[in-house]
């Protein structure tokens, strides 16, 4: 990176979706028009996802500034004000280096190891990665460490699998290293299928070389001959950047035959998934790489002994690999100093839902949920009330306010009924119905069940039927017991962890929000006012100003009233589309 003034635009999937490309084009146009000697670059996810499009400006003699919610028509102002006149546009500035801004806590409360480069470097430029110390760890390993020493270092660091299960990475590598086979495979699991989770995508899009470097080091440690990155097809940008990174690393001698003249060779190929959540499970992922239906098989034999084409195979998650170069560069001891007794290092979470500052949050293990949601995330949107946080996606659980002081680590979360999972953290407020949320997850797992074993295939279907009838107001008093019984049977009887964890959202909502189930079943009432079969719509005559907006927009003609006088909703005609609630500017429409 030169000393030139620099404008950087965050162009990960979210940045692009929010219109980042047109902002970038506008910036280039303005700079060219005014003939400024300013470098314009792109970067991956900066993490402030809630305020996309993000533009960072580095100008000599001025602090670094990140502008948020930039639209193409803001660009001339920013270019003229900041780059030419040297004035910071305070109302648009999210973050001013060294100064306190309202959104500064978002980064200040984080500890970024995995995301250290995300949003700083150009992910498509290998020199940017190298300038931050990239591939130093690989050089250190290949020039002075035996594979055993590498495995010992990782074991000593206490790194555990970031895909969710939390198996010690060093131990996993040892198992595969000891297995015998003509070929050995090292696989990166980038099949990030959890709805509400995008940290792997952000790392792949923002710092692909870190993952590749971690994989090469892992490959050397176990003696792998071939590597695969199994990436979701829904992440086209990640796939493209990975392929470029692999080609660049190969041309610099970090990958391929005789890496850095060490005698060690490894090739890495990107395999695109085709849309099956179960393929995140190791044995299903292997079947999919082999071109088959991605169905899990019983273990043992474990992939470490019999994986791809029957050969020893080691599979780690994206975030796990991204931690490896840092550990080698900074030593295991330093890594092990972070976190708790059983969970070392940091974890990246995707903070989404009704939280004010949603985005990528990397925090030290052991940080409490409260610190993540209220410290990093800044609390709940629109001044509403926190109700629950859903952690770990469809395999995880919903935790209530009383458990907000639970630390995030591999031991505390399961004790509360949730799991660490891959790192999705969806915050919900009082407008979310917990029975509906449980139904949502069961709809997902039921659809994604591969169908091989009966408890998962039929059990999730039956649970979904029960939840559906409860939401419709047709629940029976015995349904809660039946749900609990089914949940336990499915957990115990399923072949893989998809079924083994599928009942978790139901079990945790039953545990912490049982009163909502009871209200649906006994009182035929949805406390959140969400389940359409259980609510009716009304207009508060005190609040209604008779503006007529609801009347004009009601698709079923159910609203009547004279102008400037309170309106009423005809229950018989109402189709419960919520259009009136959305349109009313006076908060006069309510549900009962």
């Amino acid at each position, binding site marked *: 990176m030169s000393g030139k003034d620099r404008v950087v635009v965050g162009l990960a*999937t*979210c940045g*692009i*979706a*929010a219109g980042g490309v047109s902002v970038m084009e506008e910036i280039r146009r303005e700079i060219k028009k005014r003939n400024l000697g300013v470098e314009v670059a792109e970067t991956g996810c900066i993490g402030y*996802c*809630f305020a*996309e499009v993000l533009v960072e400006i580095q100008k000599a003699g001025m602090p670094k500034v990140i502008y948020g919610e930039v639209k193409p028509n803001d660009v001339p102002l920013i270019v003229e004000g900041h780059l030419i006149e040297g004035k910071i546009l305070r109302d648009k500035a999210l973050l001013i280096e060294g100064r306190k801004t309202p959104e500064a806590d978002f980064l200040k409360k984080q500890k970024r190891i995995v995301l250290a480069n995300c949003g700083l470097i150009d992910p498509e430029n290998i020199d940017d990665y190298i300038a931050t110390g990239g591939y130093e760890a690989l050089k250190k390993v290949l020039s002075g460490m035996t594979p055993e020493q590498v495995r010992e270092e990782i074991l000593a660091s206490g790194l555990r699998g970031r895909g969710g299960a939390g198996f010690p990475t060093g131990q996993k590598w040892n198992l595969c290293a000891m297995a015998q086979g003509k070929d050995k495979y090292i696989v990166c699991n980038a099949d*990030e*299928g*959890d*709805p*509400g*989770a*995008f940290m792997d*995508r952000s790392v792949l899009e923002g710092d692909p070389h870190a993952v590749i470097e971690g994989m090469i080091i892992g490959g050397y440690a176990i003696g792998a001959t071939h590597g695969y990155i199994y990436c979701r*097809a*829904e*992440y*086209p940008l990640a796939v493209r950047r990975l392929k470029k990174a692999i080609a660049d690393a190969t041309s610099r001698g970090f990958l391929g035959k005789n890496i850095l003249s060490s005698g060690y060779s490894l090739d890495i190929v990107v*395999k*695109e*998934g*085709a*849309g*099956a*959540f179960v393929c995140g499970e190791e044995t299903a992922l292997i079947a*999919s*790489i*082999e*071109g*088959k*239906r*991605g*169905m899990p098989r019983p273990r043992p034999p474990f992939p470490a002994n019999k994986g791809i*084409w029957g050969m020893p195979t080691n599979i780690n998650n994206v975030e796990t690999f991204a931690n490896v170069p840092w550990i080698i560069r900074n030593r295991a001891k330093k890594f092990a100093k972070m976190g708790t007794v059983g969970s070392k290092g940091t974890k990246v979470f*995707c903070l*989404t*839902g*009704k939280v004010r500052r*949603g*985005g990528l949050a990397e925090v030290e293990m052991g940080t409490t949920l409260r610190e993540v949601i209220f410290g990093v995330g800044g609390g709940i949107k629109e001044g509403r009330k926190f109700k629950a946080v*859903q952690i770990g*996606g469809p395999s995880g659980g919903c935790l209530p306010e009383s458990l907000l002081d639970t630390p995030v680590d591999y031991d505390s979360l399961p004790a509360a009924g949730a799991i660490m999972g891959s790192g*999705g953290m*969806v915050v*919900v407020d009082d407008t*979310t119905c917990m029975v509906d*949320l449980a139904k*949502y*997850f069961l709809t*997902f797992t039921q659809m*994604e069940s*591969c169908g091989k074993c009966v408890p998962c295939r039929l059990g999730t279907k039956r649970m979904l039927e029960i939840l559906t009838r409860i939401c419709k107001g047709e629940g029976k008093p015995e349904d809660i017991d039946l749900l609990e019984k089914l949940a336990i049977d499915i957990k115990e009887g399923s072949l893989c962890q998809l079924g083994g964890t599928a009942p978790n959202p139901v079990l945790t909502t039953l545990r912490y929000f049982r009163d909502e189930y009871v209200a649906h079943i006994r009182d035929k009432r949805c406390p959140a006012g969400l389940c359409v079969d259980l609510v009716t719509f009304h207009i508060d005559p005190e609040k209604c100003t008779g503006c007529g907006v609801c009347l004009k927009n009601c698709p079923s003609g159910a609203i009547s009233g004279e102008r400037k006088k309170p309106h009423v909703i005809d229950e018989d005609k109402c189709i419960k*589309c*919520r*259009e009136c609630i*959305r349109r009313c500017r006076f908060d006069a429409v309510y549900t009962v």
Partner: protein
Amino acid sequence: MMSAYSPGACDNGEQSRVLEKILKKYKGSEGALIPVLQEAQEALGYLSEETLKKIAKATGRTLAQVYGVATFYAQFRLEPIGKHLVRICHGTACHVAGADDIDAAVCGHLGLPEEGGTTGDMEFTVEKVVCVGACSLAPIMIVDGVAHGRLNPDKARSVIKSYQKSENERSGGGARSGKRAQKKK
């Protein structure tokens, strides 16, 4: 992902040639069935029975095996799709932000049932997808590979209208140039 396919652009002969090329590229490589199906769909728009039969023959698998794989993964389509592919995200963040309302608005506007499908004129296919990983912009939908985030029902409808409009403009534009051509005469 943007599809390279455009309906009616290639006849049967051309389709076979495209498929042959893909099959040749992957000939002899183990476990290549999924990439073959992906590339065939990308080029042809969907996987017809005929396409699956050819792939089975070339890869030395039974039709049942190929069909089994094609129906296992959500990405593969056995029916033709409309000119515009609308994918409405139903990830958790989108669900709690009202993805169902987006479904209702888009499908209602296009006259489709709420679970989606293809319009009679083959202009639009609407499908629900699970998490596109852009949760901070929820609710979100992707039209022909372009993401539209922070939606509400009105905004979703106007996005769809803009695709209908560009369609009309194109045909309208054709008519105008026709008139100009007439004037020249």
